[in-house]
């Protein structure tokens, strides 16, 4: 039967969705097999009518509204007959390896699997962007799709790597399994939240997506913000939030910020600098719990029995490398994926790792500077090119607190005494010595 035009004055034909099986009843088409001619309004269908597919009744139908179409996931740019390199992670590490491989070889297939949208951004900017008035669009240097086209790789965005079979060179993802000739793990670390901090009540800033959501919350105007954790990220965020006009309390475990890294004179300068831009420092204090108050604000219960309230809470309590994927595959893991310090090979065949997710001699190294060099080494090894190998050197640690910038060089050791080399109102220089050698020095 042909589809009639509506003439009953009730507007266009409507559609109704069977909640059980997904059949769509279209008023214009009716259900002739059940005696409903085309043009039968849903309201006029007898109550004992049943879904022609699954048999549920009229009451199990609901008005059908089209959902927003799912954005297509970028797919291969060309035929990929060889498995090629598969990279897990769409942060700086993942993209650096992709770029390094492509710079040396225009042909080898590359697939980049990332749980986020694959946007390229410079992560250190996340802790200084609010004070500079930058938004997500300003931080995004290139979309994942554009970068994938530029590098001629297949981007699998919003895709999680869930399983790994090293012997079969197979990676399982939430969009199906992938074969690889070489696998590069660059999935980074995730915020480690102490027990007692409800993840639904506190933000963690470790990627652009999370930062963007926080940015949206903060964009509604000046707020009270509590930052839990006075490590590098906590201190930088606290200052950045204060510069953006928010009333910030920084809760630290020590009497001074960064107690594990900085000697007391440097910590005092840092604290004074933060207080100079309006940050209230609270410590030594630990947060034992979070709860939503009746007025919508969040109460932080402190270990000394007191509490404070804030409209927004951010936890900067450190990072931990997720271990499920690698442990499940039988790869060595020790606070991070164990890699050979010279080749960055993991204990699995043809599997490499770099960036925030690795540990070198049992120590994670979560800084930007080594990543490009690590990516070069891995790219050369994958492509079977000569390379002198990776030589790890402790990166310079720069605290991006403009109120009291601090640079740390060498390998600072917690507990080892620091000696003052220079101390004036404008400058502090200190160093650590071992056996007559200066092993670490700082300038504040």
């Amino acid at each position, binding site marked *: 039967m042909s589809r009639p035009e509506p003439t009953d004055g009730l507007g266009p034909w409507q559609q109704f969705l069977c*909640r*059980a*099986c997904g059949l769509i009843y279209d008023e214009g088409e009716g259900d002739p097999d059940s005696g409903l001619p085309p043009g039968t309004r849903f309201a006029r269908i007898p109550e004992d009518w049943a*879904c022609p*597919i*699954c*048999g*549920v*009744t009229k009451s*199990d139908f*609901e008005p059908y509204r089209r959902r927003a179409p799912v954005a297509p996931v970028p797919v291969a740019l060309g035929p990929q007959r060889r498995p090629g390199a598969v990279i897990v992670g769409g942060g700086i590490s993942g993209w650096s390896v992709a770029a390094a491989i492509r710079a040396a070889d225009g042909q080898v297939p590359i697939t980049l699997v990332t*749980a986020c949208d694959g946007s390229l951004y410079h992560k250190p900017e996340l802790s200084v962007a609010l004070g500079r008035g930058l938004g997500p669009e300003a931080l995004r240097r290139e979309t994942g799709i554009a970068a994938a086209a530029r590098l001629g790789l297949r981007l699998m965005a*919003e*895709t*999680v790597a*869930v*399983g790994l*079979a090293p*012997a*079969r060179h197979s990676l*399982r993802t*939430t*969009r*199906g*399994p992938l074969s690889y000739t070489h696998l590069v793990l660059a999935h980074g670390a*995730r*915020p480690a939240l102490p027990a007692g901090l409800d*993840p*639904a*009540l*506190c*933000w*963690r800033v470790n990627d652009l997506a*999370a930062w963007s*959501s926080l940015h*949206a*919350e903060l964009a*509604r*105007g*000046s*707020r*009270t913000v509590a930052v839990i954790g006075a490590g590098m990220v906590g201190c930088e965020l606290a200052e950045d939030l204060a510069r953006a006009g928010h009333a910030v309390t920084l809760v630290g475990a020590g009497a001074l910020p960064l107690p594990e890294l900085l000697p007391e004179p440097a910590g005092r300068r840092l604290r004074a600098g933060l207080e100079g831009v309006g940050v209230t420092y609270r410590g030594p204090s630990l947060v034992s719990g979070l709860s*939503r*108050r009746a*007025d*919508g*604000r*969040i109460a932080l219960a402190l270990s000394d029995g007191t509490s404070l309230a804030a*409209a*927004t809470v951010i936890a900067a309590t450190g990072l931990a490398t997720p271990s*499920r994927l690698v442990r*499940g595959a039988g790869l060595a893991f020790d606070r991070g994926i164990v890699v050979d310090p010279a080749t960055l090979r993991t204990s699995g065949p043809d599997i490499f790792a770099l960036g925030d997710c690795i540990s070198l001699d049992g120590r994670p190294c979560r800084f930007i500077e080594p990543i490009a060099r690590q990516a070069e080494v891995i790219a050369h090894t994958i492509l079977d090119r000569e390379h002198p190998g990776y030589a790890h050197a402790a990166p310079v640690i720069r605290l991006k607190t403009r109120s009291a910038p601090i640079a740390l060089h060498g390998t600072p050791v917690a507990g080892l005494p620091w000696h003052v080399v220079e101390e004036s109102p404008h400058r502090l220089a200190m160093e650590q010595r071992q056996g007559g050698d200066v092993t670490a020095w700082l300038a504040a």
Partner: protein
Amino acid sequence: MPSALALRQVEDRVAPAGPAAPNRPDWIDAAVLAGTTAIADGPLSAAAGAIDRGAYPLDLLGRLGETGALAVHLDRHGARFGLAVAAMQAASRACGATGFLMWCHAVCGLYLEQSGNPALTGARLDDHAAGRRFGGTALSNPMKAFAGIEPILLRARRVTGGYRVSGMLPWVSHIGPGQYCGAIAGVVGPGDTIGHEIMFLLACDRAELRPCPHFSGMEGTSTWGLRLDNLFVGEDDLIADPARPFIGRIRGAFILLQCGMGLGVAEGSLADMGAVEETLGHVNQFLDDRPDTIAAELAELRARVMQLAETPYESSNDYLIDVLDARAQVSELALRASQSALLHQGARGYLMSAAPQRRIREAHFVAIVTPALKHLRWEMARLSRETLPAATDGGRA
């Protein structure tokens, strides 16, 4: 992270189980597997085609019950989940539909036992576990509802002494006159909103069974539409109220048990390939997914499933992702293995009487039955995401 042991203790305290059936001495591991294998290789293999076309093998299920294959995963019989999976694999190697029926039956037994409800854990559970009475599960819709995939179809209203439940479930398997199934309904509160859900044992004789349209295979699973019209659910019928914490506790075990089905279909397909290796191996060597490839992946996957079956009630996020990942790989492997088996056998596998074409449809079923492959991937993606504050109004400044 609470251990499975800790969970059991809580359960025991809340509702002591009824007089437990003595462990049947003949239900030792080797005997259960040998008994199941004998049935699978004998009468079940012979009946697989008929079951595919519509014969409901209650007699064979009764015999499988006698061997202990439907009971060994229960706490009262040693919580031997690995053995239960192995038994389902052995049966599914002969007939995927029967493997599915075993799973329906096994999880129904799990609901009864874990309910802690004395009315459900006594003789009723003993009869069920031994395969003297039969019942399945109607949790496809609520499982999807809990994952945020679709709305819940059964609605309950609170009344004196219990609830009244109405609604329609389109296809529920391993039910029939005199049988029963576990079901979940959303309790409608003020403003027509659902505040919580209840889980209950639904006796089919108190509901209307409606014939389903024809499926492309596995027609002998006794699958019906179920219509409930103001059905009273009293305390004796309740499995869990509220249902969500209960489902959270048994979810890993529920999904893990399904792995037996797909492993069996893949193993049966492997046998189909091997059956023609001598005659067709010279040309079959040009196919993908050769028997050695499938066998290696099957062995690795089965070992992983057995490892997970050691702690079926573990509640950590990582464990649940491990279970979902294994279940997803079971689907993928069954699909690839069955496809390859038909290509290996060629026209003889394409005959309507041949096992390979039946196994392809069984493998498709493994990949679409709840949780379907797409649901598993959706759920793994969801569980992998970090929880962050809702990006709405985060309270007053």
